[in-house]
C-alpha cells in the first residue's frame, strides 16, 4: 500500500479532519434542535396539563406536591415568575396567599412565642384561620415550606430552620439564628423538651460551659426563650414555642 507522505497527504488529512468536525457539529446541532423541540413539546404538554388540572392542583394537597416535584425535575418553577404563562394559571398566587397567611400567623403568635413557631403549630393555626371548606383545609407541610421559603427574599427577617426528624421551625423576627442556636432547637425538638439548662446542654452536645451559656443567653436576648430561676439549682431556659405543643392549649 502506498504510504501517504509529502504535502499532498498532509492536506488531505486536514481536509478529512475538517469534514469530520463539520459532521460532528451537524450531528450536535441536530441533537440540540431535537432536544429543544422535545422540551418545547414537553413544556406545552406540561402547561396543558397544568391548566387542565388547575383546580385539582389548587384543591388537592398531594397532587400539588407531586406536580411541584415534576416541575422541579425539569427546572420549571411555577412560583418564580409572576409573568407569562404561569401567572395565568395562578399557582403562584396560591403560594403568595399562603405566604401572607403564614406571616399573619407568625405575627399573631409572636406575643406568645417571641417569633419562633414549629411548622406543625403554624399549620394547625393557619388551617383554623382559613375557613372550613375542604380546599382550604388541605394545606400540607410541603406547601407551607415552599411558601415560607419564598419569604426569604425579604431578608433575614424570615427563615425556616430544620430541626431534624423532618421537623421545621419558622423564625420570624430579624436576626440570624446561629449554628449553635439551631443545634439547641434541634436537640430540644428531638428530645421533645421545651426547656434546657447549661449543664444538660454541655452534657448532650459536648460543649464547653461558656459556649452553652452564651448561646442560651443570646436566645434569651432575642426574646425566644424565658428564664426560670426557681428550678433546682441552675437557671433553666424555656422555649414557649415548644411549650404545650398540641396539648391543653385552647
Amino acid at each position, binding site marked *: 500500500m502506498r504510504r501517504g507522505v509529502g504535502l499532498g497527504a498532509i492536506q488531505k488529512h486536514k481536509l478529512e479532519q475538517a469534514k469530520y468536525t463539520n459532521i460532528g457539529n451537524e450531528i450536535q446541532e441536530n441533537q440540540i434542535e431535537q432536544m429543544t423541540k422535545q422540551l418545547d413539546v414537553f413544556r406545552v404538554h406540561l402547561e396543558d396539563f397544568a391548566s387542565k388540572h388547575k383546580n385539582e392542583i389548587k384543591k388537592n394537597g398531594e397532587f400539588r406536591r407531586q406536580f411541584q416535584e415534576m416541575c422541579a425535575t425539569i427546572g420549571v418553577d411555577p412560583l418564580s415568575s409572576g409573568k407569562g404563562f404561569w401567572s395565568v394559571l395562578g399557582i403562584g398566587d396560591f403560594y403568595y396567599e399562603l405566604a401572607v397567611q403564614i406571616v399573619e400567623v407568625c405575627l399573631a403568635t409572636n406575643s406568645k412565642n*417571641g417569633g419562633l413557631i414549629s411548622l406543625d403549630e403554624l399549620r394547625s393555626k393557619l388551617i383554623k384561620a382559613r375557613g372550613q371548606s375542604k380546599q382550604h383545609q388541605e394545606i400540607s407541610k410541603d406547601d407551607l415550606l415552599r411558601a415560607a421559603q419564598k419569604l426569604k427574599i425579604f431578608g433575614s427577617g424570615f427563615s425556616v430552620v430544620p430541626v431534624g426528624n423532618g421537623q421545621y421551625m419558622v423564625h420570624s423576627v430579624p436576626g440570624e439564628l446561629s449554628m449553635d442556636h439551631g443545634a439547641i432547637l434541634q436537640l430540644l425538638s428531638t428530645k421533645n423538651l421545651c426547656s434546657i439548662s447549661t449543664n444538660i446542654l454541655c452534657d448532650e452536645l459536648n460543649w464547653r460551659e461558656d459556649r452553652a451559656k452564651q448561646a442560651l443567653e443570646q436566645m434569651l436576648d432575642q*426574646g425566644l426563650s*424565658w428564664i*426560670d430561676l426557681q*428550678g433546682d439549682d441552675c437557671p433553666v431556659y424555656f422555649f414557649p414555642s415548644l*411549650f*404545650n405543643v398540641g396539648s391543653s392549649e385552647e
Partner: protein
Amino acid sequence: MTEVDISWPWQYSFPPFFTLQPHPETRSKQVAAWKTLILDYCRQTKTYSLDVREANQWPLFSNSAINRKLDSNVIISILSELAKNGNAAALDKAKNRWEIYWHTLEEWASMIYGYICESGLQNSVITFFELSNGTDVEGQEFFGIQTEVLIKVLRVLENDRKCELILADDMQGVKFF
C-alpha cells in the same frame, strides 16, 4: 376566698412566668399577662382587696402543680403597674395592702349611676348596704361591692355633683341627684 373555677392562661403552667424576665420585650409581655390574670382572677373571685403578705400564698400567685411562686416584690411592682391605669391602689406606704379595681372607679361610678337613673332612684336616700347587697341589686355587676370601694366610687360621683354621701354614725348612705 370563694372557690371558683379559674380558666388559667397558658402562662400559668409555664414555669418561667413566675420569674421576672430580664429581656425587656419578654418582660413587658409577662407583666401584661400578669395584669390581665390578676384582674380576671379578682373579678371571678369577687376580690376587692388583698394583702400581699397573704396573697402570695393564693393560687393566683402560687402554682403548686409546678411548684412556682411569684415573689412579693414582683407582685408589688405589677400591682403598681395596675395602679397606673386606675386598676389598683395601694392602701399603705409599704404597699402591702391593695384595693383591686377590675373596673376602674370611674367605670363603677357610671355603672352605678346608670342603674340609679334606670330605676328612678334620683332624689332618694339609699344605704350603702342596700346599694351593694340589697335584693334589688342582685344580678347587677356591682352586687357585693366592698363598702370601702363603694365609698370611693361614690366620691367620684359626688365630685360630679351627682350624689351626696351621708356618713352619720347611725345611718351610712347616699342621696343621688
